[in-house]
């Protein structure tokens, strides 16, 4: 277990686990590194990646990493398990997820109300995509027992699943969405990459992509966290002031191995989700809790005991902006 301590040897050494470093919704992580903003802050940040969200949080709790770039809703989930995790920089107020319907089913599934009897894909059972799918369905009058949820993963397996009819529709992010749309294999049914789209679909904001850290670490290393926030907020500013092509050009070449235009398009499509200041909107956080309390087995029935104030802080983003 000694490997655990090595990371935090010097206080400027920070390990951050990204729940899929190549997902466009988590783009600020790698971009900050590429732009050199961590170095500018005097930080020595090591980015790790891991495809399944839950493992990322586990490494955070066990202390292997100091921060995770992932979905905000996990902080609520974990609080019900007695863990204090707090979002320090909120990249977006919307999930950035898209419900895509397969080309073959596009004329039959026109809205979530048509989900009945369908096979709907999500990245993983119990993940945010699962909860959002359930929310979309129930909000449109389809009980969660009336459709079949299918784990379809992300990337190629998702594309193949939709293409081969393994799922009729499914929730995923860019670049998978861009890939599906550009090849005509899928059509966007519900777009939660913009504030308007999200409000239309969910009736409110649903903040997702964020950097969260262990509460105790945040308290003990306010300076480091502040530097991280500075870097990330600066990156958010960069994202908002540059075109998709310019951003894509900053990213490592092999992130665009699937095709340069495709990558640029994914960034372009997803870009609107990122906010400018890295601050959490209180209304968004409440909305997330609302969704989770209906569908998450952990949060169900515990809504009142959740202290939202502990799940995020704008303290650092405020300073970074100011």
């Amino acid at each position: 277990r000694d490997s655990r301590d090595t990371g935090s040897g010097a206080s400027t050494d920070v390990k951050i686990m990204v729940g899929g470093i190549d997902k466009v919704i988590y783009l600020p992580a790698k971009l900050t590194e590429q732009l050199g903003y961590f170095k500018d802050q005097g930080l020595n940040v090591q980015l790790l990646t891991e495809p399944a969200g839950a493992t990322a949080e586990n490494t955070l709790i066990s202390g292997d990493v100091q921060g995770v770039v992932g979905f905000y809703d996990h902080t609520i989930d974990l609080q019900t398990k007695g863990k204090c995790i707090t979002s320090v920089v909120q990249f977006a107020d919307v999930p950035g997820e898209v419900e895509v319907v397969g080309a073959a089913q596009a004329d039959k599934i026109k809205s979530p109300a048509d989900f009945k009897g369908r096979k709907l894909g999500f990245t993983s059972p119990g993940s945010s995509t699962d909860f959002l799918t359930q929310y979309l369905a129930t909000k449109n009058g389809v009980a969660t027992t009336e459709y079949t949820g299918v784990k379809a993963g992300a990337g190629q397996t998702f594309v193949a699943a939709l293409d081969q009819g393994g799922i009729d529709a499914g929730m995923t992010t860019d670049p998978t969405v861009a890939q599906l749309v550009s090849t005509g294999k899928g059509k966007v049914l519900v777009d939660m990459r913009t504030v308007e789209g999200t409000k239309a679909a969910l009736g409110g904001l649903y903040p997702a992509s964020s950097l969260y850290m262990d509460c105790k670490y945040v308290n003990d290393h306010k300076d480091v966290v502040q530097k991280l926030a500075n870097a990330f907020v600066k990156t958010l500013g960069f994202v908002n002031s540059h075109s998709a092509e310019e951003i894509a050009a900053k990213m490592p070449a092999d992130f665009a191995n699937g095709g340069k235009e495709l990558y640029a398009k994914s960034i372009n499509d997803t870009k609107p989700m990122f906010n400018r200041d890295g601050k959490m909107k209180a209304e968004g956080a409440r909305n997330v809790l609302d969704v989770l309390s209906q569908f998450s087995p952990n949060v169900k029935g515990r809504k009142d005991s959740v202290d939202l104030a502990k799940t995020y802080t704008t303290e650092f983003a405020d300073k970074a902006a100011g």
Partner: protein
Amino acid sequence: MRGEPDVSPEASAVLAAPAPVRAPVSVASAVRRRRMKIWSIRLALVVLWLGSWEVSATYWIDPFFYSKPSSVWQRLVDWFSSGTSQGSIWEQMSVTLQEAAAGFVLGALAGVVLGILLGRSHLLSDICAPFIKAANAVPRIVLAALFVLWFGLGMSSKIATAFVLVFFAVFFNAFQGAREVDRNLVNNARILGASRFQVLTTIVVPSATSWILASLHSAFGFALIGAVVGEFTGADRGLGLLIDRSRSTFDSAGIYAGMIVITVIALLAEWLITALEKRLLKWRPPAASAEAQI
């Protein structure tokens, strides 16, 4: 005295008269005593392990990661009494079991047949060996993802993953087993008039049996792993999905409970394979002299 000398008159007397029968009886009871002892040690170990897990999870280590036996047990009771969020636990088990069983049977068959063929043909094995070894080095999770592309999200992609895992485990043993065959026996069979094919079925296959069986012991475990890995990659039912769900919802009790269910299935399969082994290898000299002697 036709057919008599095998059990000499004295021996028959021993078997008939009550007093001397004592010997076999006492052997049987010794066997029973031994079994009792083994089971009680096993039980003690399990209790010790569960106990120390429970205690340390209560006092020292974080049950968030490690869960504890009582919560795992609770989760199992839940699953079996009120079902899982994906439906009845029996259904999940049957799905995973079907996938694993199909992959196991196909993989074992293919492994045995190819292993023995290549083991006996030097030209074939020289040509194919590097390809098979190369294929064996391909990470199975990558393959699982490819199988989803090739075979879709249905059962077939899980069966394919299980197949691949089982195939290689069995293949290498069948191959070596076919090579290790006593040359004397092969020569003798050839002299007695066996065709190449007969040598294969009557000499090579029985000789390689203990090799093949050794690999089958671990192979069903592999088949289950294959099914679970396949389900991790994409599925709508199955134990793998159940574990995956537990993982995403930070339900470590669910992870361990899922693992226990899989393990129990594997042990049942193992028990069947052991029974098969006993049947197939009954010609062997018993390993423990205790068994041979009466």
